[in-house]
């Protein structure tokens, strides 16, 4: 008859054995992955490629995983308590000051002393992602439809702008709304077949849609010039004044008109301010929509589609409007991207872009506008900073993502601001 203490000891030993098995399994997976990925390296030796082995690296990696996994298992009870994922409705902890501070900084950025070409260019890239994040936020954050093919609308916007500008020499300000409109139509076209899908199924189909658009762009040679892309897309001008050192006969360029010395930064700053304006406009638009019946219906749909139907809300219209508006905003961003780069090819619109944008929305805290800004900054700037780490860059990046999702599964700013409050609604009673 074993005593209670004996039984406990046996259970403890059993647990330890289980943990060891678990750690060994993790180490084995690491070994299989690391053998070819880390263990073998090709080096250039006098023009010939030579295979170099690094078994010591493999051994270190496997040992690290084994010890780490074992420690994780043994100290699991010490792990951080994972907070609730349900979006909480915060009580008056809105952070308008943070939003205004960020917006003010963004406007001032190009005129700050440290803002060289690199900083402004990086800022422009960041703002494109912010705008894409805000656009996708409508679909994923508000309407709760997981769209993994958002890059398709970005691509449609970019190609629409490029083709319209190249073939019909239309100006940026005419092409921009047309590109947005075309992307919105694509959004509706995607929306119809996926109306009945939700969750994982929706994600898979939208992912396929994104790839389809990219593959069509590659193969429709006659229209899109295939994998070679579309070069020399017209750059935007400052209300008709081009940013060129030597403008064509009969036109005045920006620096001549304002009596400045020519500087290539002018165009960069203009592009930066342009995307900033587009992004801020997007933000105001989405914030306003959210407070309208349509925006509330998006959120209601995310919360409970069956309850929506029982209240007489047409889920088809609500979903399609979310897809269309999200796609339109992506199309605007795409048009800007095309005019900024001057060259686009299908390579710019791969799945990794979609994944990045979804990551921005999820990391930012579904539905939070300022959260999207912070997450975009994190995702765009971290790889830049991480350049120091050279080959470990993606590793650091992935680790940082995992840590954030453990600490804040609801996103960096996962708090939801009510669209209306009784206190405020009650005040102006006639």
């Amino acid at each position: 008859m074993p005593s209670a203490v004996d039984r406990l000891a046996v259970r403890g030993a059993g647990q330890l054995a289980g943990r060891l098995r678990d750690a060994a399994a993790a180490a084995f997976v690491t070994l299989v992955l690391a053998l070819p990925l880390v263990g073998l390296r090709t080096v250039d030796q006098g023009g010939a490629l030579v295979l170099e082995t690094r078994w010591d690296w493999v051994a270190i990696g496997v040992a690290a995983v084994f010890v780490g996994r074992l420690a994780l298992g043994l100290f699991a009870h010490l792990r951080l308590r994972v907070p609730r994922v349900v979006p909480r409705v915060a009580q008056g902890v809105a952070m308008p000051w943070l939003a205004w501070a960020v917006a003010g900084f963004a406007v001032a950025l190009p005129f700050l002393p440290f803002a060289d070409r690199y900083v402004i260019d990086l800022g422009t890239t960041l703002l494109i992602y912010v705008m894409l994040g805000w656009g996708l936020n409508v679909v994923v954050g508000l309407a709760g439809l997981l769209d993994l093919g958002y890059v398709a609308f970005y691509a449609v916007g970019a190609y629409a702008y490029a083709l319209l500008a190249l073939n019909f020499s239309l100006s940026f300000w005419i092409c921009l709304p047309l590109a947005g409109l075309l992307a919105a139509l694509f959004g509706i076209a995607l929306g119809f077949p996926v109306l009945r899908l939700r969750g994982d199924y929706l994600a898979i189909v939208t992912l396929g849609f994104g790839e389809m658009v990219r593959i069509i762009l590659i193969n429709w040679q006659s229209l899109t010039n295939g994998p070679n892309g579309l070069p020399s897309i017209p750059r935007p001008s400052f209300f008709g004044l081009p940013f060129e050192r030597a403008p064509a006969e009969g036109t005045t360029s920006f620096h001549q008109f304002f009596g400045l010395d020519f500087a290539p930064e002018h165009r960069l700053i203009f592009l930066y301010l342009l995307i900033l304006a587009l992004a801020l406009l997007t933000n105001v638009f989405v914030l306003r929509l959210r407070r309208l019946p349509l925006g509330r219906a998006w959120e209601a749909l995310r919360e409970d589609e069956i309850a929506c139907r029982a209240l007489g809300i047409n889920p088809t219209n609500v979903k399609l409007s979310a897809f269309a508006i999200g796609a339109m905003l992506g199309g605007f961003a795409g048009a800007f991207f095309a005019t900024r780069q001057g060259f686009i090819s299908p390579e710019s619109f791969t799945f990794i872009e979609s994944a990045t944008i979804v990551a921005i929305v999820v990391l930012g805290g579904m539905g939070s506008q300022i959260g999207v800004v912070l997450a975009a900054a994190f995702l765009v700037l971290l790889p830049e900073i991480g350049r120091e780490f050279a080959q470990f860059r993606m590793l650091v990046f992935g680790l940082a993502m995992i840590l954030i999702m453990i600490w804040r599964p609801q996103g960096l700013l996962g708090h939801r601001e009510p669209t209306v409050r009784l206190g405020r609604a009650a005040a102006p009673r006639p």
Partner: protein
Amino acid sequence: MSAPPLLEVADLEMRFGGLIAVDQLSLTAAAREITAIIGPNGAGKTTLFNCLTGFYRPTGGRMVLHHPNGALALDRMDGYRIAARANVVRTFQNIRLFPGMTVLENLLVAQHNTLMRASSFSLAGLFGLARFRRAERAALERARDWLARVDLLDVADLAAGTLPYGAQRRLEIARAMCADPVLLCLDEPAAGLNARESSALGALLLEIRAEQAIGILLIEHDMSVVMGVSDHVIVLDHGRKIADGAPAAVRHDAAVIKAYLGEDDDAALPPAVAADLRAGQGGA
């Protein structure tokens, strides 16, 4: 009595493969009346609601709603249109709120169609036109009225999902009322409520009946609520109607008592209800 009843259901049938959940069911419900639908678990009560509100397409029979704007064949309308056009609004046996949205927002979502028209499908809303602002103020007033009536004013700005159970039940009824029902279908609104909350619910239902020209269908297992408020009780068992009449008459009906207390029926009622019925039988 020349006017037709608000709702006429004739020979309704709902089959799931071999199972007949609703079997040749005919019933009527009048405006300004509370019609209770009772029966043991699995009798087909919720299935009847699912047919009425377009969640299921019945495999047979007809359902006609004599709406103030004309008669509507519910069996030929689908999905959201039954709530939007025929104004048949329901609540759910297992509460379905928008848990992450505030209590007030839940009531505004219920007024979606009115507000959407007023906002010209968002255009008037985006530009903040006066017409939309007026409609929005009216919607807020209405929401506030209902919040006051179900005693949820002071939690109006909290997430609906954080409310206690009884408050969530009341909110679901208020939300249904904000959706402008002509026929209100309540699926076990007293489930999970304590005695005090149940009697408050009964009072609320009587108030709604007195003030609004709407019909109420009430599925309920709590006999004190059913007997206290209903004008008319319909008893279902295995998808069939086994009794139909005034509460007092149904209570003493032999078939009903057998259905509830029958030896062969495992799916009996909660003990409290059974005791209540037995007491009723004893008193006869």
